[in-house]
């Protein structure tokens, strides 16, 4: 085993469905990962917004844990965690002055200079595993499911850590296509979901989320796939609120990409914890006869 797995806090609580489905899927794919025995919160992306080194400490400490394990790669599932860890890593690799300060500050830890590679499961599947090999593993092709890949911001911005070209990404499309789904691009698929604005300006965030859903609906998209618990919250869990505020809000089930992966690999729905999704999520998959067995 040479890959560390960094889960992120939300995946241990509210977004358990992102983690369990991913772990099951990776096991099925033969991707061996080991959850870091010691890790702390990634620090979360908003704190990297200004030039405040103290907020780099948390992600760098996690990267040092990976190095301590003797691993050269750490895999993430949540795009926020990916973004935070990757940006901190980039800084440690390229900004000599800040690297020196941080290493001096964290004098209880070994020095770090960006030696670890931070990946997201999506780009790991593309670059290391390969779409062809993934296609071979698919037992239940998601044929007839029209999916909109929702990239959001943090997989594609800023440029240093972008997994694909921000203006016209194909990574998520290729992934969904490998699972056998019908992939439909929609213009709002790379727009921000409202992110943390949901705390400070919930009405504005709701409008942004509504626009995204509406756009997806107009492109006849049946379901959204995404990579981030905060996107899931804004686009999935807040659909009922949108309905109170706006006319004609479509019911669109929202899935973590790992849940659709697990389903396509023919794994038990148990590992997907669909009870944490919108009710329509499991319903749609049942209608399409994708589920290996239906949990009681």
């Amino acid at each position, binding site marked *: 085993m040479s890959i560390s797995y960094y*889960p*992120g*806090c*939300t995946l*241990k*609580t509210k977004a358990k469905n992102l983690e369990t489905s991913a772990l099951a899927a990776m096991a099925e794919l033969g991707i061996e990962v080991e959850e870091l025995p*010691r*890790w*702390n*919160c990634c*620090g979360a992306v908003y*704190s990297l917004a200004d030039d405040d080194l*103290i*907020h780099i*400490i*948390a992600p760098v*400490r996690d990267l040092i844990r990976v190095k301590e394990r003797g691993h050269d790669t750490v895999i993430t599932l949540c795009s926020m965690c990916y973004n935070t860890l990757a940006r901190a890593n980039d800084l440690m690799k390229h900004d000599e002055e800040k690297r020196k300060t941080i290493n001096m500050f*964290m004098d*209880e*830890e070994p020095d770090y200079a960006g030696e670890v590679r931070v990946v997201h499961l999506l780009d790991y599947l593309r670059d290391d595993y390969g779409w062809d090999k993934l296609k071979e593993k698919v037992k239940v092709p998601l044929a007839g499911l029209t999916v909109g890949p929702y990239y959001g911001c943090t997989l594609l911005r800023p440029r240093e850590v972008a997994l694909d070209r921000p203006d016209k990404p194909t990574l998520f499309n290729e992934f969904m296509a490998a699972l056998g789904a019908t992939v439909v691009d929609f213009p709002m698929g790379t727009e921000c979901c409202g992110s943390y604005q949901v705390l400070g300006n919930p009405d504005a965030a709701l409008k942004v989320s509504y626009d995204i859903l509406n756009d997806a609906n107009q492109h006849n998209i049946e379901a959204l796939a995404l990579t981030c618990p905060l996107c899931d919250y804004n686009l999935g869990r807040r659909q009922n609120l949108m309905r109170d505020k706006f006319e004609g809000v479509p019911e669109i089930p929202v899935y973590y990409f790992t849940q659709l992966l697990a389903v396509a690999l023919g794994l038990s729905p148990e590992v997907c914890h669909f009870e944490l999704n919108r009710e329509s999520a499991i319903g749609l998959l049942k209608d399409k006869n994708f589920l290996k067995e239906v949990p009681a």
Partner: protein
Amino acid sequence: MSTTNEGSGAVAAKVEAKLIPIHVMGKRYEVPESLTIMKAIEYAGYKYIRGCGCRGGVCGACSTVYRKPGDYKIYTGLACQTVVEPEMYLTQLPFYPALRTTYEFSELEGKPEEIFELYPELFRCVACNACTKVCPMDVEVLDYISALKRGDIKAAAEISFDCIQCGLCASRCFAEMPQYHIAQLARRINGAYLTPRAEHLKTMVANIEAGRFAEGLNELKAMDTDTLKKTYQERELEPATAGDDWTPKDTRYL
């Protein structure tokens, strides 16, 4: 019978003991080199009111912060456990203010969200690790705070188990958290809600309340001393290596 081990707590000034200089709150004293900080301070002539408790390393009253010459590091220790070093500069920190919220413990359900609501400052942690570095008990404070942020109360309870609530972590916290109060809540939740209650305990309490052992105890209370001694000597002893399921031959008084 007399003993030779007359060892009162008083610090006997040993003529042969080498004296070394230490600086108590910046003031220099010469003290015997083998003493703990606590005994050295007393040797110097102080009489403790604050900053001294169990004198055995478990109460958290005597946390001490010190530096060594030519070293930028902050060192900490319990005064009752840490041996003096030449030229150390020290102060004790007998108290540090920390916010503790109140809660009706019996009304909790043991969910992480309850801790998040009671101590929202948990999420101000930037993982600077100052807490762990300053802990005189070598508790991985950052690790239990990190565990709590992801809702793992059991891990937090286990990691924080050796905490003596001295408050040094709170004194250094960048996020201004009262770590040790949060850990206490986590341990209590783990003990009461995340660990199964003991069934045998419930049964025993119910049996006692129903008066099951009253007769046996009355017999014992009424016994003359000789009979009581005989009963005592003849009581069956559970062997040291017996498993928990061992049962005595005589079950009359069970």
